[in-house]
């Protein structure tokens, strides 16, 4: 089991001078500590225009800072939005290669197509086209990284023969992932032989079903590259404290606020009727989601890594048992948890929880 941090870089109102910088600096401090503690990956999303929820519009730059301040942790550019109005595929390939070089071959590249009207509408993107453009991007990126010269006559872009430079350090290229919010995208991942980067909180039963189907389906995939990434990662929330009551109070405050801001996004489907977005794409556990065991008095949704170390070990063991390879944690939301407590939570997790799963590995 691998563990990662997952950053939206949420910034609370009021937007006073220095607040964004403070969020970025605290996040970098968390990454440095995570690197020292043995976490495996730091992921940063790409979002645009999402006030408070995410001020992470240039993740490749944040991740470059992460790479420069760490020595071991991998950097997850995830996910880059694969629509031409936001990112030309050549620029995606170029930036990813540079990040792979400067990080010393530590890049993981996630792909996505954006799910809010706020973002797609802001770039005047036709939501009907995003699945097509995403599909084209994941097929051309490996070619751009591995072919000496590249030419393309496609749907979302075309170009004459050029040498796309530089090439990434990892051979043949950095691992490819796709973010999975809508049910069914895990099958798209499997069919293309790319990793399943879950970013929607699902319960055990739903995740087990999706993971089983993903692993079954990827056996017969037509990979977009010469290598298959068959890993499944899920999104979770982490607040670890020796006192279960404190953990629940603090962690659930974070989860509640994250859920609130997530629910306040404007999903594409709400503004623009389309076949291309079948679900609202919420990241947080939905209201009324499966709760923990009947004996759980604190209402923590099942599988969420909020609690004392014993509870979190139990939850992660369950994730492991259903075939999840990695868990990426949101460790704060709109700065609701003071930095010192976030760092203490990471240290306690690394001391009491992480070793249980390292031994098994």
């Amino acid at each position, binding site marked *: 089991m691998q563990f990662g941090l997952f950053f939206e870089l949420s910034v609370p109102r009021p937007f006073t001078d220095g607040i964004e910088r403070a969020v970025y600096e605290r996040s970098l401090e968390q990454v440095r500590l995570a690197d020292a503690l043995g976490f495996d990956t730091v992921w940063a999303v790409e979002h645009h225009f999402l006030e408070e929820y995410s001020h992470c519009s240039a993740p490749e730059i944040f991740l470059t800072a992460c790479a420069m301040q760490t020595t071991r942790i991998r950097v997850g550019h995830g996910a880059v939005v694969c629509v031409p109005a936001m990112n030309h595929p050549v620029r995606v390939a170029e930036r990813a290669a540079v990040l792979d070089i400067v990080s010393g071959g530590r890049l993981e590249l996630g792909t996505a197509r954006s799910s809010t009207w*706020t973002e797609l509408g802001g770039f005047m993107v036709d939501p009907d086209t995003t699945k097509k453009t995403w599909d084209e991007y994941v097929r051309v990126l490996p070619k751009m990284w591995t072919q000496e010269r590249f030419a393309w006559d496609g749907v979302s872009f075309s170009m004459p023969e050029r040498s796309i430079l530089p090439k990434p350090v990892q051979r043949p290229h950095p691992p490819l992932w796709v973010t999975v919010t809508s049910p069914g995208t895990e099958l798209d991942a499997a069919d293309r032989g790319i990793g399943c980067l879950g970013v929607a909180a699902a319960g055990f039963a739903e995740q087990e079903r999706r993971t089983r189907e993903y692993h079954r389906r990827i056996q017969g995939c037509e990979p977009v590259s010469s290598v298959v990434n068959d890993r499944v990662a899920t999104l979770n929330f982490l607040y670890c404290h020796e006192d279960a009551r404190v953990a629940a109070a603090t962690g659930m405050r974070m989860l509640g606020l994250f859920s609130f801001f997530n629910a306040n996004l404007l999903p594409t489907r709400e503004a623009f009727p*389309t076949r291309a977005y079948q679900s609202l794409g919420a990241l947080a556990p939905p*209201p009324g989601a499966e709760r923990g065991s009947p004996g759980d008095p604190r209402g923590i949704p099942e599988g969420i890594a909020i609690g004392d170390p014993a509870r979190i070990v139990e939850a992660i063991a369950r994730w492991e048992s259903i075939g999840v390879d990695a868990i990426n944690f949101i460790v704060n939301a709109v700065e609701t948890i003071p930095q010192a407590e976030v760092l203490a939570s990471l240290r306690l997790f690394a001391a009491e929880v992480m070793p249980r799963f390292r031994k098994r590995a």
Partner: protein
Amino acid sequence: MLFGTADLETLAADAPRMEQLDTEALVLPGAAVLQVAFEMPASARECLLPAGLHPTDPPLASIVVWRCAESPLGAFALAQLRVSCRSGLRPRAFLTGAVIDDAAAGQALAARWGFRHRVGRVELSRQYDTVTAAVALDGRTILAVALRDPDPLGPHDVQYTASMHLAHTPRGLRLVQVDPTFAVERAERGRAALTAFDGAAWGDARIAPVHPVSASIARADVTLPRLRYLCRPDLWAFEGTEGV
């Protein structure tokens, strides 16, 4: 975290009065449902909503027209102007105003579901490649909108969010949650085009549709269900939600 900032006293001034909350469901079979969404300027984000609701970003106005050829209330056409919002974690739309072409039907909808409305002319017509809607009050056009070049969608591809209607109820001034169900038989989507709009006539002069997003037309059995929830307009939903 953003909350609505509209003045409740002003909003309450012409809110409808509901004598009771225990109403039976109403089915409107085979209704034509036009929904046109526009972005509004950020300046209209919070000011149109009561404090119990949260704005979306960008703020979105939706024009919804129902033409019901047959219903227990008789034939009527109803045009609504709604502003997208959130009630707690739930996607909702706040009704700022409506126009109906049948006074008796309007009175029933106001008394049973809190539809704030006035009586006027509401027209919804379909040509091969265009659907048009026009609304007039006292002979003056306050809305002219069109859906152009419709393309078929699946019945489940259109989404209608529940409404929050501000009304004087037996429990006081409340946001009445009205969550109709839509059994969609066919649906199409097209380009939206707005040629006339008077924000003041729809409840607030600051309602300004500036950027067209989408337009859909559907044929559906619409059911206005029994009321389930009320919300205090001055408290956020986590504190102000009441079961009926």
